[in-house]
Each structure stands twice: as structure tokens, then as C-alpha cells.
């Protein structure tokens, strides 16, 4: 133990318990993730062993009962839906968070925050229900069939919006007040201060908000399943139905056998790896600022 505290006095029995418990918790949580990945790999193994990895991406179609396992159209559907939702929700979320933190009267901001926290807690199936009975008919009236990529994008956008707003707000609130005062004291306007002072200072938090929202959009099953139409195809336009990887698992798991079942686990593995890749990308983009790092104390 290279603790600076330990160099003053050895940790008491209670401190040792605390350290042990914290360490054990961390290992358990890390272990769960590892076991999950290993489990997915084991369950997917029959199809990976007998069919191979490449057919999952270059088979002519997804007809698992006939031995055709192409996941690509569903991977594309997943990505299109998530990226589209982010493109819509991110600017709205940033604007709303910036308004709540910097411009809204304090009482209104507090109300907004409560409301948004509530929205973040609404189960996804409720969003799906709304999409199914309101959004899909609206789209269908304009461009049938209604259940489509755009419906999935819009429902996902509404769903991830609260996440983006709440996390962006907390990132903005963590910007030191001295920086804002410093910018104001230089006679800088609101736009300049936001763009050149607040955004760089809150960068890691803003990025975290995007990553978590993207992860939620990639993994969302129920709401998307209810509005996306669930046809396995590359969508030619946003009005075409799509099927996402997660919806596919939910739709077919009940009756899948043998290699079909293993292929579903493989698609779960692909989804998990996609999210992990996203997190890694975010971690690479975000280099922690040294000044902030040094302000944290360490005990061990």
C-alpha cells in the first residue's frame, strides 16, 4: 500500500475493511462484464465454429433456419437508428441544457430539471406505445407503411433526449464559475464564452453524455421493436421498415434452436462489442486535463 495516509499512520482495522469491501465490489462489477462477454461467446460458439465468422456478414440473407446468417442489414438498421436519433437529440439536448443552466430563471430551471428527470425514468415501452399509436399512423398517412426507420429514429430521439439533457446539464454545471467570470470580465459575449470557454472546459462531460445516449440508443429494444416494422433489409429511404439487432434477439429467441439460437447470441455479442468500441473510442478522444486530475486526492 503506497498510501500517503499510510505513511502517517497505518490504516485502522475499519479502514482496512473499507478498502477490502471497495476492492471486492470493483472486482465483482468488472467480473460480471467479463463473464457476460464470455457467456455470449460460449453460447455463440456453435455457429462461429460450424459456420464461421464471415458468413455472419456476407451470407445472402438472414434465414437462420435455412442456414443463412447475414447480420449486416440489422447491424446497419441499428446504427442508422442510433445515429439518426443522436443527430436529432444532441442539438436539442445541448440547447435545452444550456438554456436551463445559463439563461432560464432559476425556478423554471428547477422545474425543467424535475420534469426531465421524470422523462428519463419513463419505461421505454411507454415511448414505444406512444410511437405505435401516434407516431406510426402519422407517418403512415404521409408515407406508408409508417413503421419505419424514421419512426425508430424519432422514438429513440425522444427517449435519449432526457439522458442527453441531464448529463449535459451536469457537465455544464461543473464548469468552474471562475472561468465564466473570467470570460465576462474580458468583455466576452455569451456565444463566445459558451463556444470557447464552456465547451472546452466541459468537453469530457459532454462527450460522456453523447456516449451514454448512443449506448442507450444502440441497445434499446422494446420501443424500437414496436415502431420499426422489423423487416430485415437495408433501408433504401428513411420511410422503409428496419429491424435492429436487439429487436431481432427479442423477436426470435422464443423459438430459436441450435445454430439459429447461437446466431442470436452472436448478434448479441456484436451489439456488446459495438457498445464497448464506442466507449473505447470516447476514452481515446477524451484525454483528462492534468490540472483537474491533480485536484483529486488519493488514499491508496
Amino acid at each position, binding site marked *: 500500500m503506497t498510501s500517503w495516509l499510510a505513511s502517517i499512520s497505518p490504516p485502522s482495522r475499519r479502514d482496512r475493511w473499507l478498502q477490502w469491501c471497495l476492492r471486492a465490489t470493483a472486482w465483482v462489477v468488472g467480473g460480471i462484464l467479463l463473464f457476460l462477454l464470455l457467456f455470449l461467446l460460449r453460447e455463440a460458439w456453435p455457429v462461429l465454429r460450424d459456420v464461421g465468422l464471415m458468413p455472419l456478414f456476407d451470407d445472402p440473407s438472414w434465414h437462420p433456419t435455412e442456414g443463412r446468417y447475414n447480420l449486416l442489414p440489422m447491424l446497419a438498421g441499428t446504427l442508422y437508428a442510433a445515429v439518426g436519433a443522436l443527430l436529432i437529440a444532441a442539438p436539442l439536448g445541448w440547447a435545452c441544457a444550456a438554456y436551463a443552466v445559463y439563461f432560464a430563471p432559476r425556478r423554471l430551471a428547477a422545474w425543467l430539471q424535475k420534469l426531465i428527470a421524470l422523462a428519463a425514468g419513463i419505461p421505454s415501452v411507454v415511448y414505444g406505445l406512444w410511437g405505435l399509436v401516434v407516431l406510426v399512423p402519422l407517418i403512415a398517412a404521409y408515407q406508408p407503411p409508417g413503421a419505419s426507420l424514421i419512426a425508430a429514429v424519432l422514438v429513440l430521439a425522444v427517449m435519449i433526449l432526457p439522458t442527453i439533457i441531464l448529463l449535459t446539464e451536469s457537465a455544464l454545471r461543473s464548469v468552474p464559475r471562475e472561468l465564466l467570470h473570467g470570460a465576462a470580465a*474580458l468583455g466576452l459575449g455569451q456565444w463566445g464564452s459558451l463556444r470557447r470557454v464552456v465547451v472546452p472546459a466541459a468537453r469530457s462531460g459532454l462527450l460522456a453524455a453523447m456516449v451514454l445516449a448512443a449506448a442507450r440508443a444502440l441497445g434499446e429494444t422494446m420501443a424500437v421493436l414496436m415502431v420499426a416494422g422489423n423487416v430485415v433489409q437495408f433501408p433504401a429511404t428513411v420511410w422503409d421498415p428496419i429491424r435492429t439487432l436487439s429487436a431481432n434477439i427479442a423477436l426470435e429467441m422464443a423459438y430459436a434452436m441450435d445454430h439459429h439460437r447461437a446466431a442470436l447470441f452472436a448478434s448479441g455479442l456484436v451489439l456488446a462489442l459495438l457498445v464497448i468500441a464506442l466507449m473505447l473510442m470516447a476514452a481515446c478522444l477524451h484525454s483528462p486535463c492534468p490540472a483537474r486530475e491533480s485536484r483529486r486526492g488519493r488514499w491508496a
Partner: protein
Amino acid sequence: MNHYEQLVPLHAQSRPVVMDADSGRRDYIVTRALSMHYGERQVLRDISLQVAAGRITALIGPSGVGKSSLLACVNRLTDMLPGAHVNGELRVGGVDASHAATDVIALRRRVGMIFQKPNPFPLSIWNNLAFPLREHGVRAKSQLTEAITTALQEVGLWGEVKDRLHAAALSLSGGQQQRLCMARALALQPEALLMDEPCSALDPIAVGVVEELIARLRGRYTMLIVTHNLAQARRLADDVALLWPRDGAGELVEQGPAAHLFDSPRAAVTAAYLRSERI
């Protein structure tokens, strides 16, 4: 006319200032019966302060007496503090600065501010200076380079950072960061500088460097410096003003030339305060 030239006349333009017929002294910052409240709580009462042009005025007094609040009144940073209300008269460079309609952007261009904790932006050294200049209309690269080089030279930082202008400003030491913040303010060619305990977060060597810099800027800028450190006030200040709390709000007890105030204070409170701090 290029943008940087547009900046210059502001610096050189004749400044209407308050003239004192007896001494010929010009006051750059003048407050009359200035009071400030945070919500219901009064923090400053009836402050009538004169800060002479081109001189260093130290604002001293015990912690929590409202020295920093008074400083924030001068460049209207109080507008940003939730619940802050200011009453009374404030003239900066002869211009009434106490109205809601006052152009605070222009006011803050003329009155720079240095904070207690160095607060460089999380940008590169170069951009810490270039960004405010650009926001104030200096766009051409050559003008930016000239203004930034001059400001960094003025604070004695040029030699230390000229080879790493694009490194993060936060990678500098505390003392360097504070001088960068001073360069950032000076690059806008202000007429006055407000300094809120600019040395209190620095190590002794950095304190020496920054104090030397402040002394070197004497005569070129009107400086109002808040300090806890009476020795520092004695080293730097031409004039001193003492704030003292009464019924929870700061009042201006005494102001005058540093030598007079330190050696023969008029108010009993001043004498007692100076004695208690044993300088």
C-alpha cells in the same frame, strides 16, 4: 484602417476624468454612496472611493468585509452574481457606469480584471489571448501576433513560453498562469486593472515575480488591488483604502496616500487594524 488600429485609439483617446483642483490628481474610478446587497443581506454600505489614474490603490480590510464585492461592482461583474443589487453612483473614466443601460462590454474592455485563482481558459496559451482579441474584433493574424507577443513580453512570459505557444495553458505553473491571465487582460489594452488578491494562490517566488510586474505597470494603468497582505500593500500601493465591517456590511473607514495611512492613520480602527497585523 485595420482592426488593431481600431483598438488603439481607445487606449490613447483623451479620458475625461475627475480633476481635483488642489492636487491636480485625476481620479479614474469614483464611487459615491455605493451600497450593495446580496438578497436581503447588505455587504457594502455607503462607499465613496476614489482611485487615482495611473496609481496603485490597495483595498485592504479583514476577510469577508466585501473587498472583492466592491471590485466586482467596478466592472459590473455584479450583474452576473445571482441576487446582487448595487445602488449608488459609479463613474469609470469619467463615464457613468452604474446604469442598467451602461455598455458593460465596453466597460470591461477598459477595465481588466485579475482573479484570486489564476483562471486561464482550457485552451492553448496562444488561444487564451487570441480568443478574447478575436471576440473584440481583431482578426488579422499579423495583428493578433503583434498584440499577443507584446502582451506576453509585458508580463515577462514571452521568454518562457515562446517555444510552446500552442501548449495547454493549464500546463503552466500557477505563477505563469497568473501572468498569462494578466497578459490576457493587457492584450485588450485596458485603462485600468482590478486585481483580487492576485498573489494569494501563488508560491513565494511567483509572488515576487507578479509583484514586480505590478510595480512595473505603475503609471501605465490605473490599478485597484485587493489584498489581505498588508506588507504587500505597503510594498506596492501608492494609495490605500481600508474597508471595515459595521453591522455586517463593509464601510470605507479611511483612504489616502499609503505613507500617510500606514504611518499616521486618522481613524482609530485603522490604527488598531495595522497594529494587530504587526507590519
